[in-house]
């Protein structure tokens, strides 16, 4: 799953259109657009709103280890060329001075920069070397409760010189549109790359077989964990646990000793 967090509709419009996302009508508190692989939430402007929106999104749609959160938005910068899209390797929360570092493990086509998240629109940012936005630090802090640092990516497109000038909705849409297809394509492939690293060891069929046997032999929670450990090792060494599970006898005796005896047999067979 790829989760996009964007402050305002003009930033999101191209993404919604290009990915064919549909608005979730049952969501009344937040605007969320979805298809089967993607969720896009409009966070609103400012750190607190953004953090609240991301928390809301993940509380209702808990992310997995291979999922990604991508924050896309416009930003100000007097030093960087307008229209350029940057991937942020450091996020500074201006109000507290706290810093956040997303892990950048995967290759990407963007330039990198430091970003400062400010509580208000900066109108005199001529001397600021960092990019300036109003949401990223909040999104990072909310995101880190659900995600690991490599699962969060912050992409900012320079829209103005941090001098108080404002773009029209159409101008914002055009600016974002120039980068949307690259961002979408990269995000999909990045998610595929992460998913490849997170494959489950046991298939659902194997899980069911393990559960059936554990119930049959009356394994306690501790014994069940020990059994999983033994089978995990066996599968990694031999590639299949089906034959092994069939090979061992069914319930041998009644009473509490049954689980213990079964585990002993399994252990002896594996080691």
């Amino acid at each position: 799953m790829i989760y996009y967090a964007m402050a305002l509709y003009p930033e999101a419009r191209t993404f919604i259109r290009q990915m064919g996302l549909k608005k979730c009508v049952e969501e009344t508190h937040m605007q969320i657009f979805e298809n089967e692989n993607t969720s896009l939430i409009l966070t609103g402007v400012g750190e607190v709103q953004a953090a609240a929106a991301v928390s809301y999104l993940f509380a209702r749609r808990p992310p997995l280890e291979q999922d990604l959160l991508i924050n896309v938005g416009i930003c100000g910068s007097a030093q960087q060329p307008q229209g350029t899209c940057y991937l942020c390797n450091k996020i500074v929360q201006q109000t507290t001075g706290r810093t956040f570092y997303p892990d950048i493990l995967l290759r990407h086509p963007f330039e990198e920069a430091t970003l400062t998240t400010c509580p208000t629109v900066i109108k005199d940012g001529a001397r600021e070397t960092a990019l300036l936005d109003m949401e990223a630090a909040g999104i990072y802090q909310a995101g880190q409760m659900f995600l690991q640092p490599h699962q969060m990516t912050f992409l900012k497109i320079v829209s103005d010189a941090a001098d108080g000038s404002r773009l029209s909705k159409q101008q914002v849409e055009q600016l974002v549109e120039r980068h949307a297809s690259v961002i979408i394509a990269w995000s999909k492939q990045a998610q595929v790359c992460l998913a490849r690293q997170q494959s489950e060891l046991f298939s659902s069929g194997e899980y069911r077989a393990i559960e059936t046997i554990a119930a049959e032999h009356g394994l306690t929670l501790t014994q069940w964990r020990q059994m999983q450990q033994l089978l995990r090792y066996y599968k990694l060494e031999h590639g299949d646990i089906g034959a092994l599970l069939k090979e061992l006898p069914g319930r041998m005796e009644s009473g509490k000793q049954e689980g213990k005896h079964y585990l002993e047999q399994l252990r002896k067979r594996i080691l």
Partner: protein
Amino acid sequence: MNNFESVSFKPAFSHIYIEEKALHHQVTEQILQKFPRAQQTIISHYKDVFCRSRQQFGLQKKSPKLILAKRENACIYEGARPCQSFGYTHFYYTSSVMNCLYDCEYCYLQGMYPSANLVVFVNLEETFRQVEELLQKHPLYLCISYDTDLLGLESMLGYVRQWITFAKTHENLTIEIRTKSANYSKIADLTPSDNVILAWTLSPQEIAMRYEHGTATTAARLKGAALAAANGWNVRLCFDPVLWQKNWQISYEQLVTETFETVSPNDILDCSIGQFRAAKDALKRMRKNRPNSALLQYPYQLQDGVYQYEQARAVEMTEQIKRWVGNYLPPKKIFLWQGED
């Protein structure tokens, strides 16, 4: 640019995080020159990056970053129980680098550190100062390459050369430099020193290939050890950790034979043999970080807070390897780790 066929991991040290305090240190400048294409980011403290919550050690190992920092607190530690003291009373270790270039599946660092990124403390002079302070109290046996592989990093750091030079001027200091690299050539021009021990960790080649990712081949390590020993260095050979696998007897007997055919037994200072062991909580974290490692998922037995092979298997392996090594070395040169160190 719109069509990405695939996205892969960035190369090691694609990013270098530099503490403000370390920014103008000579070592920092040297390292940065070696990685001109790296993305540099200034940080306040190395822990801002190294100690972030919920980092994925296993994934970070595929694209480790470099953190350059200045050491400010105590950095000489007493030797821990799972480590061998080789009979030294004042056994200590120090880490001028945290984490390793290599990626051994059994490595305890993945259960100890929150991050796989490498932290290099650029002010080695501070460690030297602390060593000198301790030397005023008593002699010191100091392992300098436990939480990293310093010789493996020698091209980048040159720390082994500095340590050896330092040891030469401090008689009551003995240092051990342990490695899985083939980098002896980087220090081969130095005059051997009595109080420096070069130690090579040795595993059968198939184990090295399967579990010790990125390390030098067994043959290359042995070649380095043989050259060092022939040049007059104190050379220690470490069959540690000894790992169980089907037909382990064949692999380890071959390893011992190959070792002493390559390195003259008369030139060896000593040898250590130790089975795999990991502290209880560390193994839990290691398994979480590397869920698909058969080596880590082996159902080890918990004994006195340390996970290890079941006793019969551990004793059989240790004693058998000791017998093979005993064909070449006298008993006083063979040190065992059996849990009671």
